[in-house]
């Protein structure tokens, strides 16, 4: 420490210079950004009425062919909010301005974000023409691009992509199930046959996801397959749980026996709770004894789910809750709380209350 540290002085000076340069650049960037934002805002304000007049048929796509590039941003912002002929007009505008062709070229760009944004844009056009390109991107090395391609396939709504989407769940480079699920929901009811097939013979993640989606669609023809999946003790717990939830959403009384068995006999508390919730949704009085039996479960979640389910079956379920609430034991507090929740006269949450 007694030697004059020349390198230290040199490094200190260098770093100080770097700091000054960085701070000056930040100041410059701040000013440039504010100018750019003002300019873009002004251009948007000019162009947005033109787009509305295009949608009203007062302009043609040809007249907007040479408009500034910020027009594309405005159109892409509006596109997902529109349906029908308005959407088609904006798609045509993007095609005529070469935006779609440029995006198709960008699908093989080097930067992942370019590939991803291109995929999103192609999906937003709703055209099935680019499905093969998007399917290829499902195996992209970048997880973000795979997710973007999955979403884009959903937006495009091409039913031919459904098997590829389900396969992406278990691919070497997989796509998370939530993204695949949203994409399959976007495809709509056209995906149901493929989902039913996946429930029967797919891999475990595809079976669980298919079961959940079939339930969300309220797909009555899938009841038998869902009941079989729930009853299958060899099936993964996730699949059985998803099947139980789906049967509840479908509201199929014919699944009551299987759900009752799961509520009383299953070992996984989450499965028991899901089955109890499903019975509550179905609301069949025949299931009250099973739910009452579930009230003696050692797991609090199961007791609570059974109590809530009983509370939703009137009057038989609530009568049973009153009996259970008057007795001693672990079921009593849950029974009283469930009854209190439905008899308190509390208004339901209001949409847009804030």
């Amino acid at each position: 420490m007694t030697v004059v540290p020349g390198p230290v002085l040199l490094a200190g000076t260098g770093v100080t210079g770097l700091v000054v340069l960085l701070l000056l650049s930040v100041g410059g960037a701040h000013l440039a950004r504010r100018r750019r934002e003002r300019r873009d805002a002004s251009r948007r304000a000019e162009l947005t009425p033109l787009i509305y007049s295009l949608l009203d048929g007062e302009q043609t796509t040809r007249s907007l062919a040479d408009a500034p590039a910020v027009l594309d941003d405005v159109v892409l912002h509006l596109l997902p909010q529109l349906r029908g002929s308005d959407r088609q007009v904006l798609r045509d505008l993007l095609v005529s301005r070469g935006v779609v062709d440029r995006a198709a070229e960008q699908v093989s760009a080097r930067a992942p974000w370019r590939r991803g944004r291109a995929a999103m844009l192609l999906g937003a056009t709703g055209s099935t023409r680019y499905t093969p390109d998007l399917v290829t991107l499902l195996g992209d090395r970048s997880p973000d691009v795979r997710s973007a391609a999955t979403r884009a396939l959903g937006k495009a709504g091409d039913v031919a992509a459904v098997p590829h989407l389900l396969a992406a769940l278990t691919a070497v480079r997989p796509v998370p199930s939530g993204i695949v699920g949203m994409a399959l929901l976007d495809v709509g009811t056209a995906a149901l046959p493929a989902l039913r097939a996946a429930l029967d013979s797919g891999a475990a993640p595809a079976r669980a996801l298919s079961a959940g989606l079939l339930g969300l669609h309220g797909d009555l023809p899938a009841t038998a397959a869902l009941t079989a999946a729930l009853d299958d003790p060899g099936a993964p717990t996730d699949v059985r749980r998803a099947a139980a939830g789906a049967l509840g959403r479908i509201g199929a009384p014919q699944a009551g026996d299987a759900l009752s068995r799961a509520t009383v006999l299953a070992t996984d508390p989450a499965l028991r709770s899901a089955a109890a919730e499903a019975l509550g949704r179905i609301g069949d009085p025949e299931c009250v004894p099973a739910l009452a039996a579930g009230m003696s479960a050692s797991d609090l979640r199961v007791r609570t789910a059974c109590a809530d389910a009983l509370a939703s079956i009137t009057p038989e379920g609530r009568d049973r809750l009153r009996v259970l609430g008057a007795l001693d034991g672990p079921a009593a507090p849950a029974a009283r709380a469930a009854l209190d929740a439905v008899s308190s006269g509390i208004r339901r949450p209001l949409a847009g209350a804030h």
Partner: protein
Amino acid sequence: MREFVVDALLAAGWVLTAHVALFHLVTLLLVLAGARRVWHNRHWRGVEGHDETFASPLTPAVSILVPAHDEEAGILDTLSAALGQKYPALEVVLVDDGSTDRTFALVAERYALREVTPRPTADLPVDGAILSVHRATTGDPLLVIRKDSVGRRSDALNAALNHARHPLVCMVDADSLLENEALLQVSRPFVEDPDNVVAAGGVIRAANGALTDRGTMVEPRLSRRWVVRVQVIEYLRSFLLGRTGWADAQALLIISGAFGLFRRDVVLEVGGMDPNSLAEDAELVVTIQEHLRRQRRPHRVVFVPQTVCWTEVPESWQVLGRQRKRWSHGLGQLLWKHRRMIGNPRYGPIGVLALPFFLLFELLGPVIEVVGVAAVVTSMALGLVEPAVAGAVLVLAVALGVLLSATAIAVEELTYHRYGRGRDLLGLMGAAVVEHLWFRWVHSWYRLRGLAAALARRSPVWTAMPRVGFSGDAAPAGLLVPAERPVPADRLVRAAS
């Protein structure tokens, strides 16, 4: 003997130099990694699919848990922000943890609370007695639990967890404002990857000085107080870049207690919040990861840098000192409790990267800095070190620190640029310099005291922070009120110790 003292002093000086150099190098790498990720995210802005997440039936419902103790200054704003979230299905569980002020009265009046039968969904141990449970009758999905305080936030959170109904739980401080889409943004990883994501955090920013209106952040502004400004810089560096960098390395150790989203089943599986920890937020994250790693279950802890929660930060040195002492004490507890994980490859990047970093630089750093500076000053007094040499090293250390802060400001300006006014940007630049001239050294002293408390195994003591609030009750409708107000002297709460 003299020779030994001289050698010891010089060695301490070298250790300090090496420590400062290594710390800045590692932090710079972390900041650059975080900057790279934030920069990368910028390209995806606008196509994240938040609207799809909002509309999706696959989006899981969230219980927002708000523990509150003497929070009358801002509780209504916090609840307003939480209940006004753009999110398809949520409930708010407020725990009035033995407040002695009007916290409960204000909430009861605003939301017309009605007492209901408790309806627990879990049975985590809670020390403070549950006094009553209330539900809003205004149509808001709000549950309020009144309980006795045992002086621990974790106890209040466990009470809230016992009454939460939804599969995700979001822990929010009672002096924080969530941005309108914060929940939607931070829940996106759970929607997209429900099988693996177990926890997610967002950026915390200082609300002091900002313009707010009944729970809504109208315009972020920089406080005029330097003690706040340096914390703004610190939060930018730590949250925006540091945690993004750690998350990228799959070694995120801390999700702030002010704003974090967790899978409820996993939190219950590990027994809820540790009742004895002073850093219960970090403790929860580490415990979850330790538990899942031991069971070899795949999991992800993610950080969402675009998600923002605005919170009040200390406005006085006294309060800041108490807070930082508590953090350091909590970190000491955490590292001791999870000492088997430190350097252990079985726990992946958390074990071999994050925990050693926090041990060497966050926990032991203040010891090295304080002892090292004392040694250098003594050496100079004894003529062992030339002042020019010590000065050159000091200038380098300060310049490296300022470089880190300046990088954080640059990334903020080039990506999220929350501060629109040029004068705020200038204030941030000034704070970047000021921070390393004196804040850092004072901070080290506070942390050293926290470490001493941890080593002495003193009983954990939670100290309430005086709240300023976000807007005044007397504000007429539509009038925007600056959050920065002097704290009434009678609301300054002294440490319970």
